[in-house]
């Protein structure tokens, strides 16, 4: 059934054809299941270190990247699994990295917080809050110098917008009209600190005015709405008009990382946001408009689960790196 048969659909949803929606849903499922499997692996002692889960934030990762083209760039954060998968990263290679294996995206050197796929345009997740923002400025400069028509999308959190790097980066990107899209995933907290105590203005997007760029404040759990605004910002960047700041209001269901005892937020608040599950919301809307039936939707989810299970098995069987290669990639040869 095609989108235009249902006149009462929101224009944002109607703008996405069925194939696009199916791909978006698949990626949202992959993100959710990747992280559930990551959590299970951690509980079973299969990895050491920590991880930052973005369960609950899937619509923001997938929606903002949906209008990007294959050759565009992204830069991600410590909470970056979703952005990688949204850009089509292979869960097998991500899990191999997560398990520290030589076959992983970064040959086991990076781990969960540093997954990068430079050939695929993913210039890396980052363990330093705000670290990617100034880098995006440079990527924008090189796109402009090389006139290759690409766009760079950089993700960061509400907390990161309080770092000096945020302010310096937005200002430079704006004065030089760089093809950058700044995406703030506002999940209400920077670790334990709520945004109301961390910031003097109500919305991160309000800060765009200080840097002379459009600021969009969105419901980050609405895939179609996010994709529609991202499309505008990406088009603006590509046409040489300069950067935009998009703020997706969303929520992480899990703690900040594995050491979080969640003392700073209530069970009720978490429950309230779980009821706005971005995946179920999209599925319900699609069913209401008869665009997909329950069986088709179920199959998308099951296929994603199968892919993730296979990825974990693949990664577990891969070899560890050899300690004699410890200093191999410190310098380029």
């Amino acid at each position: 059934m095609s989108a235009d048969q249902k006149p009462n659909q929101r224009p944002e949803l109607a703008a996405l054809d069925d194939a696009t929606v199916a791909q978006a849903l698949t990626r949202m499922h992959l993100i959710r299941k990747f992280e559930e499997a990551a959590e299970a692996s951690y509980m079973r002692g299969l990895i050491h270190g920590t991880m930052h889960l973005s369960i609950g934030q899937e619509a923001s990762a997938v929606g903002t990247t949906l209008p990007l083209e294959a050759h565009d760039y992204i830069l991600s954060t410590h909470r970056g699994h979703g952005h990688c998968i949204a850009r089509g990263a292979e869960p097998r290679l991500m899990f191999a990295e997560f398990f520290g294996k030589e076959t992983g995206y970064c040959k086991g050197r990076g781990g969960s917080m540093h997954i990068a796929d430079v050939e695929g345009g993913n210039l890396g997740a980052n363990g330093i809050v705000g670290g990617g923002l100034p880098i995006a400025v440079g990527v924008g400069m090189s796109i402009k110098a090389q006139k290759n028509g690409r766009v760079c999308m950089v993700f960061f959190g509400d907390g990161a917008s309080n770092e000096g790097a945020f302010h310096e980066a937005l200002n430079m990107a704006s004065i030089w009209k760089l093809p950058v899209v700044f995406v703030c995933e506002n999940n209400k907290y920077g670790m334990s600190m709520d945004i109301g105590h961390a910031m003097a203005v109500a919305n991160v997007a309000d800060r765009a005015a200080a840097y002379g760029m459009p600021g969009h404040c969105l419901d980050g759990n609405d895939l179609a709405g996010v994709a529609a605004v991202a499309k505008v910002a990406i088009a603006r960047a590509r046409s040489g008009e300069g950067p935009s700041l998009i703020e997706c209001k969303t929520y992480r269901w899990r703690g900040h990382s594995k050491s979080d005892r969640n003392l700073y937020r209530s069970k009720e608040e978490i429950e309230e946001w779980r009821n706005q599950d971005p995946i179920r919301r999209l599925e319900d809307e699609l069913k209401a408009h008869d665009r997909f039936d329950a069986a088709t939707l179920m199959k998308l989810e099951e296929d994603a689960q199968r892919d993730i299970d296979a990825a974990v098995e693949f990664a577990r069987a891969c070899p560890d790196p050899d300690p004699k290669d410890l200093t191999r990639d410190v310098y380029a040869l």
Partner: protein
Amino acid sequence: MPSETLEAVREIRELSYAEAVREALGQAMEADERVFLFGEDVGVYGGAFGVSGDLVHRFGKERVIDTPISELGIAGAAVGAAITGMRPVLEIQFSDFVTLAMEQLVNQAAKIRFMFGGKASVPMVVRLPGGSGTGAAAQHSQSLEAWFAHVPGLKVLQPSTPHDAKGMLLAAIDDPNPVLIFEHKLLYKTKGHVPAEAYRVPIGKAAIRREGTDVTIVGSSIMARKAEAAAERLATEGISAEVIDLRSIRPIDFTTIAESVRKTHRLLVVYEGVKTMGIGAEISAMIAESEVFDFLDAPIIRLGGADAPIPYNPVLEKAAVPQEDDIVTAAANLVRRGEA
């Protein structure tokens, strides 16, 4: 209570390193209203490594202050508070993030007293959890203490036991200078004897952890602990190692090192920071420049971190920093070499 019993109670009072730091913070805040704790998630979260714990409930949000994620800003704010009569203790959540605060610590805090002709001082303490071993990878596992030891105007400490963690923090809070304390993440859970009173461990004084005659092993932070364990194993091989825990990197207690080398004639320096251009180079050069050089029976050996960022994979991560086995092997080789 008879004094023997009191002694016995003292003996068994054990705290973890993290608890010892918390106790020092609590005692300092109780004793002096100017002292406050400042940093990311130090309040109700209790600190990323649980160090501040319940302090916010005891002292309130005015004295245990959660800050935005703004390392440069909060380091600068600590400088401003310090030069105007307060005694800030700043926590940099992972020592790696001090790179964002570099400007205020290196250009401002370290130099204000000197530039102002002695007319101001900067009594601030910066606590920095550092080191590898937790699988946190390259941006959360570094040992950057040598950088700061290079800056005149700063003091740099690396306590290795719960006892020193408490006593040195209290000494640092008293100190009228900016003091950086690097706490190793793997030490937080280690336990040890910690007296209840608010005692001080002097800054700039190394501790001899074990006496020996064949080789001097100098280390600090977790490497002092590893060196002690290595010395124990060396003893079973008939090698008598003297272990010096530096505790203070700047100022450094060269006297204690020199006296030990005079006795043992051999020196092994162990540190987790990257080997090249590090603490070991400085100590070796100090020996080479002094008359103690003539007492050496063998070249000085440095065991430091690999010339690589800390990798994520646990096998590689272990290989990137000196381990107990490496210390045993290096010390044994050094002794044999000296005899040959």
